Structures are given as structure tokens and as C-alpha cells.
């Protein structure tokens, strides 16, 4: 059992990290009252932007500088995600477009963007397999502490991950601190709950919505970057990221809008996501694996329904979630 857990938990965690980034980003966004269904697209854009950056750097230089090898993809990833966030805000906040529709269009665009440039890069390198490997860059991203392996189970459970994993946890905890312990966090929550009241209290609603959504998108984009550079060892292949973006949105409900809960919840979801690999089905009945893959979604649905049934006020979505704010329409 111990050896099983020792193998299972680190795998659940690396599965959970991209979800954690996406979920933290979406929580911050939703706290401002914006339901950004474009997160899956944003994560694709974040990932491919990082890939493009590192591809250019890796192929443009003979001796890689470790700092630049990390900084360039990070910068590209953040920039790409930021632009997506700005686009979403421009359409929904400034132009007051429907949030669901804008989000879905962003997902279509973002996934297409990722796969198109991914596919084009694959063509460029002319490789045999439909993927592109950035192993040099990846080695910097996935580098864990050198003494981790010497520490036995402790090292394996806690120290065996690349720095982005720790950054993800740190961001989630920082987001939790920000939302609950700072004045700006309080104002952000007020904007998501009741923009009219926040406005009357002198809070600039549009500015908060823009800032929260853009920061949220940048955080989510890092999740895409982690997936390619660390989890997938620098290998980009089209559609490999799958539906993790949607799962992050689901995770937001599961965590009842709390970034600190999202740390453990995303690991749990990571575990549920790969649980099917560990439930013995026998070679005869591989089909049950597909049913086990359903678990995270069913669990989310149940959580969603139960929270709405119990209708405890703290566990509800931000009250103005999904609604555009127009001051003169009260």
C-alpha cells in the first residue's frame, strides 16, 4: 500500500498542477464576476506561446543560458495569456458582450491557435512523429532539487517536482491571502458580489474586472506552460492538453471559490483523473476504465448540486457571476 501511494501521489500531483494553475486563475477571474469559459483556450495559448519562445531560443543559440531558457518561455507565455485576457475583458467589460459566448469563442480560437502553431512548428522541424520536443528547455523546467533523491520517500513526495509546481502552490496560497486578507482582495470580492454597491463605495468596477481577469488568464497560461515543459517533458503534440482547461473550471466549483482549497483539490482531481489506471479491471474489461474516467466529472456535478441545495451563502458563486455591469442599468 505504501509503495502504491508513493507511486500514486507524485503522479496525482503532477497531473494536478496544470489544473491548479487553471483553477486559481479562474477563481480570481470569477471573483470579479467574470465567468471566463475561455480558460481552456487561454491555457493552450499560454502553452504554445511558451513553446514558440523556447523553440526560437533553443534553435537560435548554441549555448543556452539557464536563466534565459526559463525566462523567455515564461515571458512569452505570460504575454500570450495576457493578450487573451485583455481580449476577453475588452469584449465583456468594455463592450458588455455576453460572457458565455465570448468565452466559448475564445476557447475555439485559443485551442485552434495552439494546435495551428504547434502543427506549424512540427512541420518546420520535419520530424517523424507529430510532436515537437524541446528537451533542453524542458530539462531546466523540470529540474528538481539535486538532493531530493537522497531523501527517500520524503524527497519523492515533496521535492521531486520542477519549480513551476511549487510556484503554482505558492500562487494559489498567495491568491488566497490576497482575497481574504488585503483591501484590494476585499474590493475584488465586493465587485463580484454586487458591483452596484462596490461602485457606490467608490471602487472602480471596470478596473478591478480587467485586472482580475488578466491576472487570472496569466496564471492559467502558466498551467499550460507547466504541462508542456515539465509534465510532458517539453514535447508538444496537438490536442495533448485535452480538456484539462474545462476540468479547471469544474474544479473552481469543487473548491467553492477558494484558492487555498484548490491546492489539495487539484491534487485530488489529478488523482481522480488518473485513478482509472490504478483500478484493476483485468485485461478483459478495459472498458471500465472509461467509466472510471467519468469520476471527476460526476463528483463535480454532485458538488455543484449539493452546494446549490444547501445554499449556504459562503459557498455560492459570486452573486454577479456572468452578468455584465452597466452603471446606468440598475
Amino acid at each position, binding site marked *: 500500500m505504501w509503495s502504491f501511494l508513493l507511486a500514486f501521489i507524485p503522479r496525482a500531483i503532477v497531473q494536478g498542477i496544470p489544473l491548479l494553475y487553471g483553477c486559481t486563475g479562474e477563481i480570481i477571474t470569477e471573483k470579479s464576476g467574470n465567468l471566463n469559459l475561455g480558460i481552456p483556450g487561454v491555457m493552450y495559448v499560454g502553452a504554445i506561446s511558451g513553446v514558440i519562445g523556447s523553440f526560437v531560443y533553443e534553435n537560435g543559440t548554441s549555448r543556452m543560458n539557464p536563466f534565459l531558457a526559463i525566462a523567455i518561455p515564461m515571458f512569452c507565455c505570460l504575454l500570450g495569456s495576457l493578450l487573451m485576457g485583455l481580449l476577453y475583458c475588452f469584449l465583456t467589460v468594455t463592450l458588455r458582450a455576453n460572457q458565455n459566448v465570448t468565452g466559448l469563442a475564445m476557447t475555439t480560437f485559443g485551442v485552434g491557435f495552439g494546435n495551428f502553431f504547434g502543427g506549424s512548428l512540427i512541420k518546420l522541424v520535419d520530424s517523424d512523429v507529430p510532436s515537437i520536443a524541446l528537451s533542453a528547455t524542458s530539462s531546466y523546467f523540470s529540474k528538481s532539487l539535486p538532493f531530493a533523491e537522497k531523501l527517500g520517500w520524503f524527497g519523492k513526495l515533496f521535492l521531486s517536482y520542477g519549480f513551476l509546481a511549487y510556484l503554482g502552490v505558492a500562487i494559489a496560497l498567495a491568491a488566497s491571502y490576497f482575497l481574504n486578507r488585503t*483591501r484590494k482582495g476585499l474590493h475584488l*470580492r*465586493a465587485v463580484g458580489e454586487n458591483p452596484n454597491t462596490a461602485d457606490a463605495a467608490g471602487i472602480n468596477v471596470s478596473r478591478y474586472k480587467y485586472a482580475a481577469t488578466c491576472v487570472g488568464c496569466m496564471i492559467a497560461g502558466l498551467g499550460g506552460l507547466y504541462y508542456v515543459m515539465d509534465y510532458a517533458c517539453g514535447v508538444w503534440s496537438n490536442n495533448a492538453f485535452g480538456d484539462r482547461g474545462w476540468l479547471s473550471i469544474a474544479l473552481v466549483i469543487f473548491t467553492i471559490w477558494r484558492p487555498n482549497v484548490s491546492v489539495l483539490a487539484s491534487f485530488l482531481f489529478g488523482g481522480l483523473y488518473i485513478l482509472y489506471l490504478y483500478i484493476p479491471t483485468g485485461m478483459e474489461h478495459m472498458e471500465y476504465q472509461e467509466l472510471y474516467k467519468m469520476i471527476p466529472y460526476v463528483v463535480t456535478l454532485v458538488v455543484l448540486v449539493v452546494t446549490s441545495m444547501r445554499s449556504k451563502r459562503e459557498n455560492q458563486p459570486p452573486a454577479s457571476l456572468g452578468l455584465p455591469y452597466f452603471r446606468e442599468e440598475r
Partner: protein
Amino acid sequence: METKTAAVSMRNVTKTFGSVVANDKISLDIYKGEILALLGENGSGKTTLLNMLSGIYFPDEGQIFINGKEEVIRSPKDALQLGIGMVHQHFKLIDVLSATENIILGLEGKLNIKEASKKIEEICDKYGFEVNPKQKIYDMSVSQKQTVEIVKVLYRGADILILDEPTAVLTPQESEKLFAVLRKMRDDGKAIVIITHKMHEVESLSDRVAVLRGGKYIGDMATRDTNVTEMTNMMVGHTVTLNIDRPDPVDPKPRIEVKGLSVRDEEGFLKLNDVSFTANSGEILGIAGISGCGQKELLEAIAGLQVTESGTIAYVQDDGNREMLIGKDPLKIAELGVSLSFVPEDRLGMGLVGNMDLTDNMMLRSFRDGRSPFANRKSPKELAERVVEDLEVVTPGITTPVRRLSGGNVQKVLVGREIASAPTVLLTAYAVRGLDINSSYTIYELLNEQKKKGVAVIFVGEDLDVMVELCDRILVLCGGEVSGIVDARKTDKNEVGMLMTRVGGGEKHE
């Protein structure tokens, strides 16, 4: 009075909305260490006047002096910087946040909940408020929410405090508590203005009374030098003769019998308490009262839209049979064969659908007719045409969305539809609110026509001049209770005005 310093002086302040003059050259002084009661009927311009002090409206003309210095107040923030804080009737609080979080919302600087809570507790101790800083707003009663609003204003350092009908939502006991606090604040040297209609509150609380009527400043006097009759006279003014037609009821018979009706709102507050009355056929029963005294709940309870706590509502058939309406929704009531029409207060939010055209709005009542899966649009269309013609609705056509019509025309459409179904009971809420003189008279005529047809008309109104001329009997509600039912032919508006401001109302005379 002269020895005191004027904290606020308003001079010749005028504010118009479109063609309506809400405040006409009003001059008013507010002093420190004094509680001023601003008195006036609905629509007399009290709230507008004070909203200009709190930065919500900007005056068209006139000057405002704060502590002797002329100031320009452009926003609530400006007002707070000048030490003016207003507690609105509708609270601006965020439900899921705690009292402290709401109180400090929008302020600058590092967040320190503990320190803020301490400061809040200090304020509470000083004036005798009871607030738990950690309590969430959704857990609070109305009076607790109001306390949070007041503390919010004090926390920001206001020494001129404006309260807009603070007791409208409070029980008498809660009101007493509030008054105690307000007196303490006055003794602390703060200037306090409260808007109210209730005479006994004015008498027990205020030092000075200022009266507005029809947007004009009527006068002010020290509370101890005046009495309720004088104040009521100032508030309602001299009786104006409107010459509204009032035919005598023909063969009135009981139609709606309400007995012991009580209603609580979602927050558990008693909106109607043990209300009993009978509405007769062929008669207009007026319901008078300060706004928010349970009129809405009463009509909605009869129409089957309001959950009731206790009591009965019976519909009396011509042959004397009684149908119980309580606990039935509008559809079930209609299925009983009770033809009940309802002109609600919220015309575009409830009575009509703003984005639909006239025909489709006519259909709201009739779309279920017939067995066909398709809705019959032909007769609603004819009805729309008829209403437009008969009631002289000004509209580009019957395919125009009703939200684009003016207020009076919207009301004609709504009333036209409701009387088209040949009702036996017609409920109307503020049927002439916002309408010009001509449209108002059209509506009165329509109601009289219905009355002559033997319909039991229940008319919730706010203009007492109209009510004493139009109605046959007037039921006065005060704080959710019946404070009297009077014969409109024998009463005058002073009597009704007195009843409106008296909780309980002593003996009930049928």
C-alpha cells in the same frame, strides 16, 4: 435656535427631472446638536433634496454651504469628505461580507480587520449600537443591517447624518432603540436629519420640523411649539377640489372577504398583521397608507402571488357561495371562475413585458384560451387595437415594444388589458403614479365605469385628495395593520392623514 451654528445651509436649491420640478427653490438650515424631522407626503421632494446633500444628485440651481462655506458636492465621496453621511432606504450592503468588511469597503490603506473592528466597537459603545463586527449581513435582521449602515457612515467620520425613512422597516421597539441612539448622537453634537411621515415619531424624537409639499418648502417650527394637527395640515395642505366623478354604489354586496390576514416577508418581517375587511361589488375601496405599509403584500395575497402566514381570503359569489382564494396561484384562481384583474405597481417588471409589443402583452392573460397548441393572436390584436383607440394610447403602432411608450400610455395598455376580461374584482396599485392630469382622469373614468358594472374595485393610492373624491370607502393601513376604515364621503384628508401616521389606530370603525 439662533445660538446654534448652521452645519448645512441650502439656499434656493432647485432640481428638475424632465418636466417635473422635484425641488423648487428650497432653502433649509441644519444645525449641530439638533434632530431635524423633514416631513412631507410621498413625492413631496424630501428624498431628492437630501440626495443633493449626499452627492447622489447635483442641483440645477442654488447653493449649499457647509459650516458657512460654499461647497460643491459631486459624489457621495465628496459628501463624506464634508462630513455628510446618508443612510438610504435601500441598504447598500454586500450580503456575504461581514459587518466590518462592509463598513470599511472602499476605504484606502492596509487592511486591518482587527483594528477596524476595534474602532467599530468603540463607535458602538459610544452611542449604544449593538453590532457584532464579525456577523455576516445575510444573517442580520433589517434593523441590524440598518445599524451597520449608520455605523458605516459614522466610521467615515460623518457629523451630519441623514436618514431616509429609517423606521419604515423597523418594529416599534426597534424604532425606540434607534431613537435612543440618535438622541445620544445629537447630544454628542452631531447634526441629524430624518425623513419620516410618522407624526408620533416627529413628536417624540425631533427638535425641529421642516415641511415640504409638492416640491416646495412650506415652513419649519420647533417641535414643542406645534402639534400633530398643525403638522398634518402643513403636510397635506388645503383641500383641493378635483371634481372627480363619484357615482353612488348600486346594490353593493360583499365580494372579497379578508379575515385576520398576516404576511411575513422573506426576512421574517411582519408585513401584514391581522388585516380584516370586506370589499363590496359596485364600490371603490381605497387603500391609503405610507408606502411600504403592506399595500403590495395585501394585493398580491388576494391575487394569489403572496405566501400568507395566517388568515383567510374568500371570494363571495353572487349566490352567496364562498370560494377560498388563499393558497391558490393565479391560474387556480382563474380556474375557479373567479375573474380577478390586477394592475400591479411594477408595470413593466410584472404587469407587462417591456420588450414585447402591444399584441403580445394583451396575450398575457388570454394566451391559454382554446385547445389549440397555437396561441390565438387575432383577438389580442383586436383587443390591442381597441385599447389603443378607446383609451387614446399614443403609440407608433401595436407592434411597438411597450417599453418604448411613455408611462401614461404603458398604464393605459395595462389597465385596458386588465378590464378587458370583464373582471368581477379589480385590484390596482398606484394606478396613476407618474401620469399626467389627463391620463389620470382617463384612469379614474375607467375605474368608475367598472364600478358601475358592479366590479369590486380596490384602489391602492397615494394622493389623498384623489382618494377622498374617488373612493367610496377608504381603508387606512399603518405598519401592516388596519388603522381605520372610513366613509370617503364623510371624511377629509386630514383624518385619513392622521390615521396613516398612527400605528394600531385605536378603535376600528367599519
